[in-house]
């Protein structure tokens, strides 16, 4: 068996992800899906800034690095003038659910024919691990040093609950924690891209991801934490657009 990175993924220079970071896996999954669907030369990808912007250095797809929290409207602008080309927005939980939440919801409301991949690691990574809307109750972060609670940080935002009433093409959540879940996450990304090719509209795939640096855990402990705890708050699976079932 030969394990080979997708042709247009180049980890060789410029990448500065922390050891055990989920971005590397997510990037690879996106690369594998684009290659398997033969979309790598047609696709246009829009990234966020900070950790979510670093994929620009490790792949060779046509890419825009948008403003923080604005990859979704930027991707909409691209898609509206190039409707026949696959467009994918890749951003973190802070971008998609905090500063860019309005843009996320309104793109879903319009059922824009784009794919949105949200890497949810429950913190603002690049800025030092402050709490985000998806920070779990009780989670210690640099801006919730005594553990996040309703008084200090409000409720924990679950995008599935938020978007489940909307008329969109696809909504799924995967987890980057073990081989089985990673394979499932890839399937979700692939399905989302296929739905875009079928003109079905807005797809959002959330990927629960480790952030060893800011969680202050080893990569293997992060994986256990996602399996044991994070997925109990954020269940994985397909929630809208699951084939063969009524939504």
């Amino acid at each position: 068996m030969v394990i080979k990175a997708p042709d247009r993924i180049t980890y060789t220079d410029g990448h500065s992800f922390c050891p055990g970071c989920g971005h590397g896996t997510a990037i690879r999954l996106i690369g594998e899906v684009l290659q398997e669907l033969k979309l790598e030369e047609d696709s246009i990808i829009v990234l966020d800034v900070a950790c979510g912007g670093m994929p620009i250095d490790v792949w060779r797809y046509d890419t825009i690095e948008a403003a923080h929290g604005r990859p979704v409207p930027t991707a909409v602008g691209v898609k509206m003038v190039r409707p026949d080309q696959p467009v994918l927005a890749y951003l973190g939980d802070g971008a998609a659910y905090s500063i860019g939440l309005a843009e996320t919801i309104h793109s879903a409301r319009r059922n824009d024919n784009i794919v949105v991949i949200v890497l949810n690691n429950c913190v603002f990574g690049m800025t030092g691990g402050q709490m985000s809307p998806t920070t779990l109750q009780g989670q210690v972060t640099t801006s919730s040093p005594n553990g996040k609670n309703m008084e200090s940080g409000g409720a924990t935002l679950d995008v599935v609950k938020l978007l489940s009433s909307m008329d969109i093409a696809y909504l799924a959540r995967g987890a980057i924690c073990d081989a089985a879940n990673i394979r499932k996450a890839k399937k979700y990304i692939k399905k989302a891209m296929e739905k875009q090719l079928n003109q079905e509209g807005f797809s959002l795939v959330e990927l629960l991801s480790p952030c060893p640096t800011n969680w202050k855990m080893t990569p293997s402990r992060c994986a256990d934490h996602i399996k044991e705890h994070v997925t109990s708050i954020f269940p994985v699976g397909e929630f809208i657009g699951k084939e063969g079932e009524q939504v």
Partner: protein
Amino acid sequence: MKGNEALAEAVIRSGCRFYGGYPITPQNEILEYISWRMPEVGGAFVQAESELAAINMVLGAASAGARALTSSSGPGYSLFQEGISYLVAGDIPAVIIDVARFGSGIGEISQGQCDYKLVTRGNGHGDSHLLVLAPCSVQESVDLMMQAFPLAEKYRHPVILLSDAAIGQMVEPVNLPEPQTVDINRDAWTVKGCKGQDESKKITNVFYYMDDYNSYLRDKYQKMQEEEQRWESIMTEDAQLILVAYGISARVCKEAVRMAREKGVRLGLIRPISIFPYPGKAFKNIPDSCKALMTVEMSITGQMAEDVRLAVNCRYPVYTYGTGIKVPGSSDVVRYASDIIEGKIDKEVF
């Protein structure tokens, strides 16, 4: 045609094929007109959820090669600032229309010229300056709109067309130019897919890592200073006092110059058409007869006076007749200018 509608038609005829915008008075006619006109030419229209979304949609569409535009007025223009800064950082050409209204905060929907500092000094964080064109008639709105995208593409830089509520709402006869179209794939740098290319196109806003980025950006602004200064000078050769005004106030000043001269008061007028770069060249040959300059503008604090002082290197007193929310009256302009000439006005601005 109504100013805003003529401008909207010029947007289409300039080859623009993406518009994203959010309703705000007094520019709604632009959004409404483009909403039905853009699909006729095969372009894309979206009423965005906010000005923030709109400017970032423009960034995406322009990065993908389309001529892309958004429009707003004061409060909405404030929300564009983030995206404008990213357009500058990414070297992305786009056009933004500001149909200025009056005031800070929600202000008033009536005409105003108090976005001057925002469009010439603001435009987000960083060393962001935009090329700003300020028409004073419906015809000039159309004519400058037709130049806006070619200028944006010449510099790979966003361009602002600064109109105001009066010009946007007035009705004047207008000659519409022949429609232009451009190929969405005309430029090598835009994202379009990387078929047949080993490397891909990357639009980033971290060009400042380049060794020569400082000189690159300075040279770009310098070239604008050298090549894009635009203005109109009227009877400045023998003037005792030179009025300086742009946009709707400049129309009043043209009338004021004529009225003053009938009374034997020799006024002149410099009308900046580009306000960034500011037309400093217009102030190089001020006659010995000139005792002072006077900006006429619908701001409270005389926002443009600073640029005039710089243009004359503080060699002349620069007064401001700032009318705030009211359109200046030509006879009032003549009276104030005469008082300056007669030494009756002490304060230059306040």
